[in-house]
C-alpha cells in the first residue's frame, strides 16, 4: 500500500515539478541614435538575431541608455568607453564584452554659420549631451580653441534633440554625433571640430551587466553574434542597409552612407585591443587621455580596473558560434 502511495505521490510531484520556469524575457540591449550602433538595428530588422533572446531597444540618448542600464531596465547597452568607465566608477557591475566602433569624424562639433573655429565660441552657448563623450569632446574643443570652460556657456541637450538645436537658436554650437551631425550639416551647420582630431579617443563598446554575463552567457554570445552579423550585413550591402535604416535616422541614403565615413565598425576580435597589459597603466596608456580627462573633470573617481571590466571570452565564443564551431 505504502509503495503504491509513494509511487503515486512521486508521479504527481514529477508532473508538477515538470512546470519549468518561464523562459527569460529577451535580453534588452539599449542603443542611442549613434549610427555606429546600427549594426544591431540592422540585425534586428533583417532577422539576424533571435528576437526571443535579444531585443534591440533604440533610445533617445546616451543618458537614457546609461540610466536604463544603471536601473536594471537594460541588460546591455552600447556605450562609449568613457560612459562605461563612469558607470563602472559609480559601482555598477559591468563587463565590456566588445569594441563596437571607433569614431574619427562621426563625433563632431557643428556650429552655426557665424562660428568658424573653436576660438569663435567665446561667450557662446554650446549644446552638449550630458555624457562622458560630450565632456571629452567639449574638453578637446575648448583646448583646440584655447578656451576655458568659463568662457563658454554650456547647455545640456539630449542627443535626439540636437537636430533642431541650431535652428532654434538655443545654441551656436552643438557637440554631437552621427546621424545628428549629418542632419545638422544638412540644415546649414558646419563642423568646427571632430573626432578626427582626437584619434582613438572615442571608442564605443558593448557593456553588459556582470550578473547577466553570469546568468545569461548564451544570450550575451547571441547578442555579440547579432552585432557581428549586422556589421557584416552592413559592410556587404551598405546601400541596402542604408535604404532600410536611413529613414529611421532621418537621413537620406547618401547622408547615411556618408555618416559611416567618420567611424570604423569593429569586429569581435577587436576586443583584444582593449585587453589590459601586464600593468594597469599599460591599459591606461591606450586610453590615457580619456582616463585623465575623466579624472580631471571628476567624471570618475578612480582609475578603471581593466582586468575586471574587460571580458573577451564571450566574443571569442560568439566568433566560434559564427564560424559554426562548437
Amino acid at each position, binding site marked *: *500500500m505504502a509503495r503504491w*502511495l509513494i509511487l*503515486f505521490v512521486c508521479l504527481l510531484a514529477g508532473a508538477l515539478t515538470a512546470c519549468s520556469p*518561464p523562459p527569460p524575457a529577451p535580453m*534588452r540591449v539599449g542603443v542611442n541614435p549613434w549610427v555606429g550602433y546600427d549594426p544591431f538595428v540592422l540585425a*534586428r530588422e533583417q532577422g539576424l538575431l533571435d528576437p526571443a533572446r535579444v531585443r534591440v531597444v533604440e533610445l533617445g540618448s546616451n543618458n537614457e541608455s546609461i540610466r536604463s542600464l544603471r536601473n536594471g531596465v537594460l541588460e546591455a547597452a552600447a556605450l562609449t568607453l568613457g560612459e562605461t568607465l563612469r558607470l563602472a566608477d559609480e559601482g555598477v557591475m559591468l563587463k565590456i564584452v566588445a569594441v563596437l566602433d571607433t569614431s574619427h569624424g562621426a563625433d563632431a562639433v557643428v556650429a552655426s554659420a557665424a562660428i568658424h573655429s573653436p576660438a569663435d565660441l567665446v561667450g557662446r552657448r554650446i549644446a552638449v549631451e550630458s555624457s562622458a563623450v560630450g565632456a571629452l569632446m567639449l574638453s578637446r574643443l575648448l583646448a583646440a580653441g584655447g578656451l576655458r570652460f568659463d568662457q563658454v556657456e554650456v547647455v545640456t541637450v*539630449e542627443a535626439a534633440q540636437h537636430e533642431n538645436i541650431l535652428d532654434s537658436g538655443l545654441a551656436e554650437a552643438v557637440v554631437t554625433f552621427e546621424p545628428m551631425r549629418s542632419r545638422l550639416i544638412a540644415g546649414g551647420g558646419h563642423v568646427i571640430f571632430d573626432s578626427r582630431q582626437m584619434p582613438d579617443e572615442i571608442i564605443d563598446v558593448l557593456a553588459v551587466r556582470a550578473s547577466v554575463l553570469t546568468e545569461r552567457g548564451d544570450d550575451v554570445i547571441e547578442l555579440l553574434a547579432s552585432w557581428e552579423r549586422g556589421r557584416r550585413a552592413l559592410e556587404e550591402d551598405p546601400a541596402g542597409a542604408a535604404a*532600410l535604416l536611413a529613414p529611421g535616422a532621418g537621413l537620406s541614403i547618401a547622408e547615411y552612407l556618408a555618416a559611416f565615413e567618420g567611424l570604423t565598425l569593429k569586429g569581435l576580435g577587436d576586443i583584444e585591443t582593449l585587453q589590459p597589459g601586464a600593468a594597469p597603466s599599460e591599459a591606461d596608456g591606450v586610453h590615457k587621455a580619456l582616463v585623465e580627462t575623466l579624472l580631471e573633470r571628476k567624471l570618475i573617481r578612480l582609475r578603471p580596473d581593466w582586468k575586471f571590466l574587460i571580458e573577451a571570452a564571450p566574443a571569442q565564443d560568439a566568433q566560434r558560434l559564427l564560424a559554426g564551431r562548437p
Partner: protein
Amino acid sequence: MIVPLLARVPLRHLLPLSLVVWAAVAALISALAQMHSYDGAVESDMRRSMGERLNLEQQRIEVQHALGNRLQVRRIVAGLGLLTEVSHAWLTDRDGRVIASLRRAELGKPFAAVLEPEPAALRAALLDAASRDARKVQFLRPEGAEFMVGHAAVGSELRLLLSIDLERPLVERLYASRGELWIEGGVIIAFAALLAAALHRLWFRRMGRMTEALRAIGNGRLDTRIALEGRDELAQLAAAIDQMAAQLQDRQTNLQQLSTILARSPVIAMEWENSPGWPMNFVSESVGQWGYDRRELLSGELDFASLIHPEDKARIVAEVAAYLVDGPDEYRQEYRLRTADGRWIWVDDRTWLARGGDGRVTTISGVLLDISPQKQTEDALQASEDALRRINAGLEARVAERTAQLQVLNEELESFSYSVSHDLKAPLRGIDGYSQILLDDYGSALDDEGRTLIANVRRGVAQMHVLIEDLLAYSRMERQVLESRAVELAGLVDNLLAGRAREIAAAGMVVHNSVPALSVQADRDGLALVVRNLLENALKFSRNSKPPRIDIGAREEADKVLFWVRDNGVGFDMKYHHRVFEMFQRLHRAEDYPGTGVGLALVRKAMQRMGGRVWAESSPGQGACFFLELRK
C-alpha cells in the same frame, strides 16, 4: 471498462489512492481557480502600469511632435521596447502611416500593411483600436486572447498603438506563485495521504486480517479467529464473525459426531427427490451395512422404489402418494427392502416431508432401521403366545375341573363334619343325661371319689358339647349363605353388651363403648357372631385385670370402616400373631383361660366370608386390641 478494472484493485489500495487522487484533483482545481484569478489580476496590473506609462508617453510624444523633433518622437516610441511586456509599438499619423515603431523598417508604411505578418486576432484588435477615436488611454483584450492592445491618441493627428503580451507576465506570475500552489496542493495531498495512511492502519489493515480470516474460515479452518481490537463497527463485525465461526465450529463438531454416530448406527438416513422412483439425494454412510456403496445409490443408477419388495411396493407407493397430497408430513411405514446381496430385510421407515411455498413437497427425508430381528422376535413371540394361550386354556379347564371336584369334596366334608358333630351330640346328651341320673340316683351309693369321677365325666361332656357347638358354628359359617346388607354397628354392639350386662357387672368390668352411628355392609348374624366372640375374648382375658376394662370403637376410613375391641388383659407376643386365628391354637393354658381354640378361627372365617379382615395388636401384659376392617 474502468469499473471492472477498478473492481480488481483491492479496496485497501483503491480507497486511499482515490483519496489522494481526489486531493490531487482538488489541488489542481484550486490551482486552476487561482490561475484564473491570476489572469484577471495580471490584466488589471497591466492595464494600470501601461496606462500610467502611456499617459506619460502621450505627453512626451505630443511635446516632441509639436517641436517637430521627429527623431526624438521615433526614439520615444522605440524606447517602449524597454518594456518587456510591450511586444510592439507604433505611432501612426492621420493617414494611418507608421511614423514611429519598434522596427525601423516599418517607418512610413501604412499601419494595415505592417500588421500583415501579425496573427489575425492581434491584427484585428489593433485595427479596431486604430479606428477608435478617443484621447483617453484605452485597452482592448479580445475574449480569451493572451495579448492586450493599448491605444491612445496623441494630439489630434497621431495615434499610439501598443501590442502588449499577457502570456509572459501570467506565466511569470504563475511561476512565482508555484510555491504557494505547491504548499496548498502539498498540504491537501499530505493531509489526504495521512488520512489514507490512517484509514489503512485503522481500517484496511484490520480489514485485511478479517479477509484472511474469512478466507481461512471459508476454506474450512473453523478454528480461525479474527480477534480485532477496538469497539468500532469493524471490531463488532469481526466479533460477530468470530462468534459465527465458533458456532460453525461447534456445529461442525456436532455434525461430525453425528455423522460418525450415524455411520456406526443401525439407522440409515436418506433424502429423496419427489419424483418418480424417488431418486436419492443423500444417503448416510451407514447404508454400507446393507452392502450398498452410497455413491452407487447417489449416482442415480438405482432408484429407491426398485429396492422395495414387490409385494410391499404397491402399498408403499399408494401410501406415499396419499401422504404427499394430504399429509400428515410425518409418518412411519414398514416394508421390505432388498440388500445388495439380494436378501430381504424389514425396515421401519420414519419419513418427514418438506414443502415449498406452494405446498408442493420438495424433499422427502427419512431414517430407516432394519427391524428384521424384531420382526422375527415378534413372530416367535406370537407363536409362543398362541402356544401359551392353548396351554392356559387347558390349565383353566383342569382347574375348573379340580375346583368342581374340590367343591364336591368340600361339601362332602362339611356335610360330614356337620353330620359328625350333630351325630356326636346325641350320644353326648346320653352320657350327660345318664351321668346326671347316676349322680342323682346313685350319688349316695358312691363314695366321694366316685362322685368326683362322675363330676369329671360330666365336665368333659360339657366341654365336649361346647367344642361340638363351636365346630358346628364354624361349619355353618363355612356353609351358610351370607347376606350382605347394611348393618347398624352401634346398635349391634349395644345389643350384644346388653346381653352380657350381668356378666360384665359381675366381673366389675369397665366397658367404654364409643362406636359412632356407622353402617357397614355385612351379614348381620355373621357380624354379630364375630363381635360377640371378640367381646367374649376380651372379657375372658381381662378378667384378672384391676379393674378389667374394654374399649370398643369404630371409625370411617375411605370406603372402609375400622372397628376395634381393646382390653387390658394378659395380651400376647406378636410373634404368635399368626397362631391366634388358627383353629385349636391356644396361647394360654386351658386351666387359666378355658376355651376350645375355635373362637378366633371362627372370627377369621366369618370375616373372610364377609369380605373383611381381622388382625390384632398386642404385647404380653399390655392387653390386646382386635381390629375388624369392614366394607361401608
